[in-house]
């Protein structure tokens, strides 16, 4: 074959070789087929552990009970028992080690998420006690009168 035909061929072969060599250095060793097949399981294995190590923020009521047991007892005895502490108090993350106080949300909007009246027949929303926002103590925070840990208690 003539030289002008071979020259680009050498360049192409060189490029493929360079890509293969670069790949050998740049692609992590644990990259490969780890799952059921190539289509769904071709990945970097150490990434699974990286996701497992993602920090947990919501610690759950058991961790709250370690210090705030009387609050939790009151909550568990009330109609608000299924409501998770961190829904109102915010995710505890590393509280009390790093995060000393949690941002307690006392806004009306938080209570209205469940207790705003929506006239929906056959919806679970209808079985909850609810108010029409603009007709019920418009300027007040709910917790001024209702104890969130025991809604039956009158705080006034």
């Amino acid at each position, binding site marked *: 074959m003539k030289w002008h035909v071979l020259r680009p061929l050498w360049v192409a072969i060189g490029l493929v070789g360079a890509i293969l060599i670069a790949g050998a250095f740049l692609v992590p060793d644990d990259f490969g087929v780890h799952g059921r097949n190539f289509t*769904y399981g071709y990945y970097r294995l150490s990434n699974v552990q990286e996701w497992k190590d993602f920090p947990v923020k919501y610690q759950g009521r058991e961790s709250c009970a370690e210090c705030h047991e009387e609050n939790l007892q009151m909550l568990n005895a009330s109609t608000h028992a299924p409501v998770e502490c961190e*829904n109102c108090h915010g995710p505890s993350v590393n509280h009390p080690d790093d995060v000393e106080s949690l941002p307690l949300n006392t806004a009306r909007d938080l209570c209205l998420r469940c207790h*705003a009246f929506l006239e929906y027949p056959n919806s679970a929303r209808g079985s909850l006690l609810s108010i029409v926002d603009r007709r019920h103590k418009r300027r007040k925070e709910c917790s001024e009168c209702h104890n969130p840990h025991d809604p039956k208690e009158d705080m006034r």
Partner: protein
Amino acid sequence: MTCSRRDFLKEAVGGTLASVLPLSAFTFLSPAEARAAIAESNVRWAFLVDTTKCVGCGLCVNACKNENEIPYDAAVTRTWVERYVVTKDGQTHIDSPMGGRDGFTSMQMGEEEIDPDDIDKAFFVPKLCNQCDNPACVQVCPVGATYQTNDGVVLIDRDWCIGCGYCIMACPYGVRFFHPVHKVADKCNFCYHRISKGMEPACVECCSFGARRLANLKDPDDPVTKIITTERVAVLKDEYGTKPHVFYLGLDANVR
């Protein structure tokens, strides 16, 4: 050909040894070891959504955004709650402002105010990644940055994703989005960091009504698995053949 007794025994013993020795290279595996060797796990995560219990408080969306470090005020979310209002004229009104992050507190749906007397039925439908058995999003990834773990969860390798967006296009459920901070594709992974530690996903933990529950389909004693296998559950967009693993109780035909 003649063969003495001595030669016959020699040859027989030698031949037996020669044929048995290579067999010793094989090891006998216990069933557990065998399962590990073919990378099969005794966990298959699935999810059960009871739409009849959802009240549209949006605390699951709020918890998900906090737990998974999704920018709170960006219009992206790993899970969201849709409101369906079916009126007497046969129309279905759907909305999900900010993914239902702040809950549904008024009858107003976008621009329109729907008269309560016109409503036939109204309900809330939480949505999240279906962790499909045949995930379309994984098939289209050109670099192998998204994959299915052995326990059925589809994950995204943030170091390997090039942000091309093919997977965002491929998902029939629209659960994938472009993460505004990491500049990669992102989606719900059932809180993989929590479920692999034995905790519930953040949205499940924060749901006060039991509308969201996690199941291990390979554990026949799992109470949620029992519901999925024995009760009448439905999945979204079954016709796509993706084999979604988020099961819905009380799913309405209007839900898309």
